[in-house]
């Protein structure tokens, strides 16, 4: 971390000195020297991301996957999107890391070391779907402000940790508790230490679910730094911003948590349908809770060309927030007809489900394969971009890939 800061400063003011120092050893590396030095801030290397991931923003880091990178049933780190609101914490010392439970509605404020958390509470592992509330924002018209996510701000990794409810109950929850709010070690872009980049949370009902965990591990290993090492709240099925990274404090609140990005237009949508571009009053906005039904075709990659008469195998995942996916269909005629395909049960509640199909095309030409999932309450994905909202959340329109039959 320190080294990277040095290089950053160097690029701004005194890169020449840096080169000058190196050149004493006189080599033909000069031409390559600049990119080599800047590799220190290469997110693909720093965070082990696949080379096809797309960097939307570099301060703070916001990086998204492409549909075909998400083909694995359990998402590997290399394909996991990154949505940061502030700067990644420096110099993490796990031996000194603590988690404090406080707030108006805690019986007794308590602080735990990581070792205490790990030894005192039972460990659980769940595969949990986390999707950014703004996934699909790029399709809204008029455009909505923020990172222009397309389809890749979703992942379903395997998380290991302890139940949040076990820790909250150990500290004691007063009867007037309504919400939890998290606090973390990342820092505000402005450098103002009094500001939190993000401090969100969820109602007690979500906080007390079995699958809402304080995770130490992701896919069986220490959580990568960029995904919240050493402690992350994971609340599957809700906007991923509820799953706070680098956690050091959780407040049990006697009112809806009012931390950064809980108010105004952040992670909130109109509580009634509005016309595209309409101004919405603050009191007419509601906090996003469960994410809507959605699916993604992860194989093949869009743009496949195949010979006439050949069957096309497709596969992908579908998820439904707090609910389950009960039906999966595809269309090759822009929704005129839909064909059922198989969809597996989730490995646990809040994990995405896998579908597959074999498609035969009637004649040569340009096709689009559209996928549509339906949840356990009978709600399906729309083919068009759903209700416009000021910040462009919850676009769960059908995913599609382009196919040519020759």
């Amino acid at each position, binding site marked *: 971390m320190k080294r990277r800061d040095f290089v950053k400063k160097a690029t701004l003011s005194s890169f020449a000195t840096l*080169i000058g120092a190196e*050149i004493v050893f006189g080599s033909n590396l000069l031409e390559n020297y600049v990119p080599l030095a800047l590799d220190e801030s290469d997110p693909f290397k720093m965070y082990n991301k696949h080379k096809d991931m797309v960097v939307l923003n570099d301060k703070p880091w916001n990086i998204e996957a492409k549909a075909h990178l998400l083909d694995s049933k359990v998402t590997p780190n290399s394909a996991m999107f990154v949505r940061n609101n502030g700067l990644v914490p420096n110099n993490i010392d796990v031996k000194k890391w603590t988690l404090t439970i406080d707030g108006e509605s805690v019986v007794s404020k308590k602080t735990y070391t990581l070792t205490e958390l790990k030894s005192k509470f039972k460990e659980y592992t769940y595969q949990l779907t986390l999707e950014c509330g703004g996934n699909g924002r790029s399709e809204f*018209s008029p455009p909505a402000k923020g990172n222009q996510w397309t389809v890749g701000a979703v992942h379903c990794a395997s998380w290991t940790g302890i139940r949040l409810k076990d820790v909250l109950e150990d500290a004691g929850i007063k009867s007037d508790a309504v919400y939890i709010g998290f606090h973390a070690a990342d820092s505000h872009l402005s450098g103002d230490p009094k500001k939190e980049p993000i401090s969100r949370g969820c109602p007690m009902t979500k906080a007390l679910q079995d699958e809402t965990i304080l995770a130490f591990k992701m896919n069986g290993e220490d959580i990568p730094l960029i995904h919240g090492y050493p402690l992350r709240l994971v609340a599957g099925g809700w906007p991923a911003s509820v799953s706070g990274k680098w956690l050091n404090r959780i407040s049990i609140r006697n009112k809806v948590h009012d931390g950064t990005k809980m108010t105004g237009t952040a992670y909130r949508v109109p509580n009634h349908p509005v016309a595209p571009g309409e101004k919405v009053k603050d009191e007419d906005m509601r906090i996003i809770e469960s994410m809507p039904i959605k699916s993604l075709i992860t194989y093949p990659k869009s743009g496949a060309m*195949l010979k006439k008469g050949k069957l096309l195998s497709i596969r992908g995942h579908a998820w439904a927030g707090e609910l389950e996916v009960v039906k999966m269909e595809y269309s090759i005629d822009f929704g005129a007809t839909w064909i059922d395909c198989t969809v597996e049960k989730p490995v646990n509640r809040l994990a995405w489900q896998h579908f597959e199909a074999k498609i035969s095309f009637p004649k040569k030409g340009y096709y689009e394969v559209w996928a549509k999932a339906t949840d356990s309450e009978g709600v399906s994905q729309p083919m068009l*971009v759903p209700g416009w909202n000021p910040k462009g959340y919850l676009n769960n329109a059908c995913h599609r890939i382009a196919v040519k039959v020759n």
Partner: protein
Amino acid sequence: MLKEEDLKKSSRLIRILSGLVILLLFFIPFHLMFPHFFELKSAPEVVLTALVKDKITEIEVDEDRIENGIHIKTGFVEGEGLMVVVNNCTSCHSSKIILQNRMNTDGWNATIKWMQETQNLWGLGVNQEIIVNYLVTNYPVKNKGRRENLSGIDWYEL
């Protein structure tokens, strides 16, 4: 005597010649392997220093250089107000978040107000109009309708 001397002379000549041949035999592959071995060793350093100086000047002077109408450091297009935007809008966050977004005048003004209220952005004074004009002129809103065609498809044989 003469004969003896001649013999000595010629044998010395043969020895010198064969010595030269051996040297040559040694030198040819050596030269092939290290073609610049016998060149002045200081020469590359001179070139290098010149190169370094070029690089130093380039980096120090041209941090705000523009190539093909693009401000290299930020990716912004060249236009009236560019440097005001660079200087006021890229110290806390990346230019990438600006380049991703499309807003009208009201939208940008509201965003600036939000940044001033919550993100410690300073007062922009007369620069605000310059900044907003630059953004709406160079990055206008495009109507995308309810669903766009798929674009940028990378076709491949499956």
